[in-house]
């Protein structure tokens, strides 16, 4: 664990020393804020209208109409942005031959893999935290239910963990950062849309496809429900990705 932290600390240093973190975070915040403002405007417009027609006000709920869609959109932006954060992890180390320093040091390979994961997760968490100004603002102007907000953040971070885990695995496969990013993006998106197959498949296959879908498990978190099966799904997804990454790096030494 101590060794993982040493690896993570170095990676974080290089994130904050390079423009990547600042550019990625800025782009993320601008996109997210724009979408959030639009959702909020739409909600306030509906509120205004419902002021005129009493019966329309029935379904208005700031948790369901602002916070939930904001989280859903954040999930999409993270899908686009996390591959950029994870692509360097191993690809750059291998390309610049610095990986040999880690390999010849008295650390387990799994500690290195976890350190890399930790660094990317800290960066993503920081970005998500920065974006929380928006939800915080809602607490000033209204009275949203805090439960679904907290479980929503938990869900978003678990889902981001899956992307990061895929990203680190992809990065361990190649020396080329672009290739790593494209694989990460492609695979994450695939795991997202895999649930769509459920509509046309027979019921058994459909259920499997639906369970496999990354986004399917987020929905319950956003509604304020923590289910063991969702947490199990995300955690096993993350661990499996890190396991594959470890295997890929290890087998690389034999070739």
């Amino acid at each position: 664990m101590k060794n993982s932290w040493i690896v993570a600390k170095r990676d974080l240093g290089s994130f904050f020393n390079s423009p990547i973190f600042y550019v990625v975070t800025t782009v993320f915040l601008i996109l997210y804020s724009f979408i959030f403002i639009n959702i909020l405007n739409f909600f306030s417009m509906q509120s205004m209208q419902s002021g005129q027609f009493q019966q329309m006000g029935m379904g208005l709920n700031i948790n369901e109409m602002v916070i939930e869609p904001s989280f859903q959109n954040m999930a999409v932006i993270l899908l686009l942005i996390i591959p950029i954060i994870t692509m360097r992890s191993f690809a750059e180390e291998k390309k610049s031959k610095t990986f040999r320093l880690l390999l010849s040091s008295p650390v387990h390979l799994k500690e290195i893999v976890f350190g890399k994961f930790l660094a990317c997760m800290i960066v993503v968490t920081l970005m998500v935290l920065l974006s929380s100004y928006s939800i915080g603002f809602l607490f000033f102007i209204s009275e949203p239910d805090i439960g679904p907000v907290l479980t929503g953040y938990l869900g978003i971070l678990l889902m981001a963990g899956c992307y990061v885990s895929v990203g680190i695995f992809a990065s361990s496969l190649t020396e080329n950062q672009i290739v790593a990013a494209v694989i990460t993006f492609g695979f994450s998106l695939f795991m997202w849309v895999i649930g769509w197959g459920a509509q046309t498949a027979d019921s058994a296959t459909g259920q499997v496809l639906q369970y496999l879908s990354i986004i399917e498990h987020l929905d319950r978190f956003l509604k304020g429900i923590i289910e063991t099966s969702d947490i199990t799904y995300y955690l096993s997804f993350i661990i499996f990705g890190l396991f594959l990454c470890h295997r890929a790096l290890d087998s690389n030494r034999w070739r």
Partner: protein
Amino acid sequence: MIEVENLTRYYGSRRAINNLSFQIEKGEVVGFLGPNGAGKSTTMNIISCILPASSGTVKINGFDTFEQSLEIRKIIGYLPETPPLYPDMTVAKYLDFAAGIRGVAAKRIPASVERVLDKCSLKDVGHRIIGRLSKGYQQRVGLAQAMVHDPEILILDEPTIGLDPIQIIEIRKLIQELAAEHTIILSSHILPEITQICKRVIIINEGEIAAVDSLGGLTASLRKSDRISLTVRNSDDTIIEKLNNLDQVLSVSSEEEDQFFIECALRSNLQDDIAKLALENHWGIIELKPVSMTLEDIFLKLTLEEKEPAA
């Protein structure tokens, strides 16, 4: 201290090293010598636990590089061919990281970094970004990285590659200083380097050991004749003939008009006779000296001799 036994490594179907066996004692400075692609780096990578061997074992202090690699990694400092430097870090921060990852206890890190900064004369550039340093300084940072945890064994893969002559001399001096306290394995395809630093040479060619010996031993075992060079002021056609007539002279050749190479029997010490001859004939000696066999000669001889039977 280091025992290598029947070490073989394949990359795919290509065999990089074949059946290497040798031993290195504590405190020795050993040179790996061989042309590019001979398997020097592969051997070093296996000793530093980066690559597993396809077959054969390496034992260091009784620990196996495959089974107990963590123990070994604690006592090894490795400088790969390309120094593993993060160009966006400052020298001091990088060495901090290297010390941490190489297992130096957190409390002792500042002192360790201070020590190697001092030893590698990096004090002045400690706060600078590695990517902006000259190649010579980068190489020194690479060396500092390898010794920050004060390892018993230093493995240096071509430490002077790509440096200018002054930098080469500096790095060599540094390695010679280190030799007092560490066991060092050094690889190079530049021969004089090995002559200056190493006491024992392991010559690797096409993945196999061509020779293991001290430098003197190598020269002696390969030498079938002594060689003397003579340079004169007034050369004439008869010189070669007259030299040839001397006792124990095997052959005389001349590459330039006034320089002659005399091959003579081992330990015949013909200098006196040649000088006498030169004085009698008024050739006017400019230079008369024995030519010792260089590592280049040894190297070529060994590697070429190895090849012939195969062809």
